[in-house]
């Protein structure tokens, strides 16, 4: 019997799990995927928004500004890359300058600190590579960039370190109300829980509808992105937005926390909550739109493209509330942008809601907010590097050449709590395969390490989801070799 069940291990589910791990509660997080952070969390703009964009009085405005302020401490505790690099919303016309002024006023009411409207020459000082046609910008120094999946993974790991249970590859198929709360049925069996927190992301409406009358409908909205080589990672220094129109925030240009450059997203309504494919049209659109802001950008330095889905709803605000029909069932749904920025505040908010429903619960004396530090080998000093290799020689073996990731780091992230079990999970945690060769060289080596550490056959190592197999079996010649090895063994037995 669990006290709290969190459905969904994205940035919201993991943020709530980590907040709940401060208390003496029996908490479980379930996710249908092979890893946490495997939906919208792994494919978005990776921005911590300042908070001028959300309409005054909305949940988005409230949680964005509050969440933004929590990032420094949170990322420090969890060892997650976060940089407060500021953002610019650039204007090309007097008309757009008027919109900037409106955003500025809205931001001030929302409580965004140090907002400023700056003129052409100051924009150029901050961003010399932007179009000369830009006449001014809204500057928000409190905006930042973060590793979104790293944050979710770190939150999950810290939650597990503090006693939360995580079950992956477990899809909730039915929820039934009963005397003691809810009976949750999954494809891996069922369990009883007192409270449910629905963080189902793109599937949050389906989860809600398992036990409640439909009250909202998730409208998946696809955003496609291009990621560029580190050689152009400093093409811009801050998050560069175009002036928003009624169609949305438009295409952004920004550096990532790992020093790449990111351009995106598109915005396209799709029918399917799993439609994360990129399209010819989408990628062409990105280039056209970005060229307005960075006309001379070398698009040939692209290293990959990807798409993510926003979980939008018609009302265009977050839904964070207890179901009117089911006491103890909290929906945390429709968390599209600025969901990542708001996540830390949403975590706190949901715990407060739960306290109101369940009565106050007891804190843990031994709660440890700090995740066991992650070693970024290449960031160590030469002396530290040498000492590290002395202690564990696997830190002396570079597996991923492009990102310079050692075997020691890969083994560590596999063996952590909520550790990596597949190729993409290693990439998200240690960046092996995230560089310019996209795993061409290190893929086979990482698979070998995964097989060894997880004690499985290499053919069982998958790319991402549990059915995303990579190898189909031994070649004819290695089969032949195995057969003859067996023959030798048999004849030796005789």
């Amino acid at each position, binding site marked *: 019997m669990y006290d709290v069940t969190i459905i969904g291990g994205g940035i919201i589910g993991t943020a709530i799990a980590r907040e709940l791990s401060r208390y003496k509660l029996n908490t479980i997080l379930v996710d249908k995927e092979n890893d946490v952070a495997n939906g919208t969390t792994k494919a978005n703009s990776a921005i911590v928004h300042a908070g001028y964009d959300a309409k005054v009085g909305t949940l988005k405005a409230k949680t964005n500004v509050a969440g933004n302020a929590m990032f420094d401490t949170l990322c420090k505790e969890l060892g997650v890359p976060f940089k407060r690099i500021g953002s610019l919303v650039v204007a090309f016309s007097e008309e757009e300058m008027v919109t900037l002024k409106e955003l500025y006023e809205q931001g001030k009411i929302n409580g965004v600190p140090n907002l400023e409207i700056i003129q052409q020459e100051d924009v150029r000082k901050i961003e010399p590579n932007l179009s000369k046609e830009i006449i001014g910008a809204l500057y928000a120094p409190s905006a930042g960039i973060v590793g979104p999946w790293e944050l979710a993974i770190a939150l999950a790991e810290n939650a597990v370190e503090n006693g939360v249970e995580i079950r992956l590859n477990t899809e909730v198929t039915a929820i039934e109300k009963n005397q003691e709360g809810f009976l949750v049925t999954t494809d891996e069996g069922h369990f009883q829980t007192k409270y449910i927190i629905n963080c189902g992301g793109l599937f949050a409406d389906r989860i809600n509808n398992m036990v409640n009358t439909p009250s909202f409908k998730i409208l998946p909205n696809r955003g496609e992105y*291009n*990621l560029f080589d580190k050689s152009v990672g400093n093409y811009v220094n801050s998050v560069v937005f175009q002036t928003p129109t009624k169609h949305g925030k438009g295409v952004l240009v920004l550096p990532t926390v790992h020093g790449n450059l990111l351009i995106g997203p598109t915005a396209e309504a799709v029918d399917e909550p*799993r439609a*994360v*494919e*990129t*399209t*010819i049209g*989408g*990628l062409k659109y990105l280039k056209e739109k970005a060229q307005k802001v960075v006309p001379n950008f070398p698009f040939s330095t*692209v*290293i*990959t*493209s*990807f798409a993510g889905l926003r979980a939008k709803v018609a009302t265009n605000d977050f839904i964070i509330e207890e179901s009117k029909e089911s006491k103890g069932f909290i929906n945390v749904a429709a968390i599209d942008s600025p969901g990542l920025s708001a996540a830390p505040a949403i975590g706190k908010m949901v715990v407060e809601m739960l306290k109101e429903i369940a009565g106050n619960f007891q804190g843990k004396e031994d709660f440890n907010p700090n995740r066991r530090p992650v070693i970024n080998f*290449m960031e160590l000093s*030469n002396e530290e*590097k*040498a000492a590290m*290799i*002395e202690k564990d*020689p*696997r830190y*002396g*073996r*570079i597996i991923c*050449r*492009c990102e*310079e990731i050692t075997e020691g780091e890969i083994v560590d992230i596999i063996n952590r709590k909520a550790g990596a079990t597949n190729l993409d999970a290693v990439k998200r945690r240690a960046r092996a395969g995230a560089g*310019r*060769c*996209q*795993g*061409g*060289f290190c*893929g*086979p080596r990482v698979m070998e390490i995964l097989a060894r550490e997880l004690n499985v056959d*290499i*053919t069982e190592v*998958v*790319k*991402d*989801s*549990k*059915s*995303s*197999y*990579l*190898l*189909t*079996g*031994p*070649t*004819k*010649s*290695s089969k032949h*070799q195995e057969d003859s090895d067996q023959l030798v063994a048999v004849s030796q037995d005789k």
Partner: protein
Amino acid sequence: MEKYDIVVIGGGPAGLAAAIEAKENGASNILIIERDRELGGILQQCIHNGFGLHVFKEELTGPEYAERFICELKKQGIRYKLDTMVLDITEDKKVMAINTVDGLIEIEAKAIVLAMGCRERTRGAINIPGTRAAGIFTAGTAQRFINMEGYMVGKNVLILGSGDIGLIMARRMTLEGARVHGVVEIMPYSGGLTRNIVQCLEDYQIPLYLSHTIIDIKGRDRIEEVIIAQVDENRRPIDGTEESFKCDTLLLSVGLIPENELSKSAGIKIDPITGGPIVNESMETSVEGIFACGNVVHVHDLVDWVTEESRKAGKNASAYVQDRLIREKKPISTSAGKGVRYIVPQKIRLENVEKNLDLMLRVDNVYHRAKLVVKDNDKIIKVIKKNHLAPGEMESITLNLEDLERVVGKEITVALQQEEV
């Protein structure tokens, strides 16, 4: 701080040939640094034959070709470190490397030979749309899985790009029992060697779709379907020409990129066309005493040419450490004219040319009955007639010293001329 006369970065065919040649020309204290677990580089996974026709006058497999050099290397007593990654090189020729045995290694070298080879262009680099399902491999990665690790990567295969590795893998996958549905090439001609088109595709009835590209990849966990379409002269897909292939695997053979991150860290000038260092007649880069050879300079199609170029680099690195390389005079530049994509070397110092000098070049399209014309301003130095020229086949022009000494301009140009019909 360890000290060596010559440090060779990379133990593939280029590094091996350079090190041996340096030793044979009098350099003694040489070290090869190799990041893989064995010497030989990509040759070790190229188990097909056809290597060595020029250098050894016989057909060898990749591992056999490598073995000859490795034996020679060991015979010469040249030192090497395996499983060792170079992290940084500096303009003053300090090398920082790392491995499990020595930890961090700082090396001071009198000369460096860059022989890091190249990497494969990825799906991301050419922005193929579709899902990110499993089952997409670069042809070289698939080759490694099959030939080195002993595992198949799929059963129903489509190959994008008709570069040589793609063609070789079409045959290899077929021999391993997979069904190869075709090779798709965006250009109107193949990027590979003619002999590979014949021996790897035609002999196995594998269709080659020229002027086609992939417009979509479907499948959530593993690839299930790949859609291709014909392209127009601007390489844009033509509506209505779509064709679908039910396959679980897509191999990419869409180009190779010289691996020059280290070169850049040493401030070496890179040729934007080749993607490799700008080199002179001695295979020396823009940084004095740092030489480069093989696929790190420009992508070759035959290993024999890598060997020849690398021997030159090794010999000159050896001359450099013995103070025998002449460097005062202003060099002549080579310039790619109409129809020519690039020329290596980009600079020539005549004082260091012995009898003759080979210019290596690639053309920008398929040409029939054409001439390669070498000019000093308007004066023609040399003309070579060719029945067939293609971007996939590297050309060489040998200029002798007397011709070069008559050059009065600052540069010589090689351009292509179509013959009058």
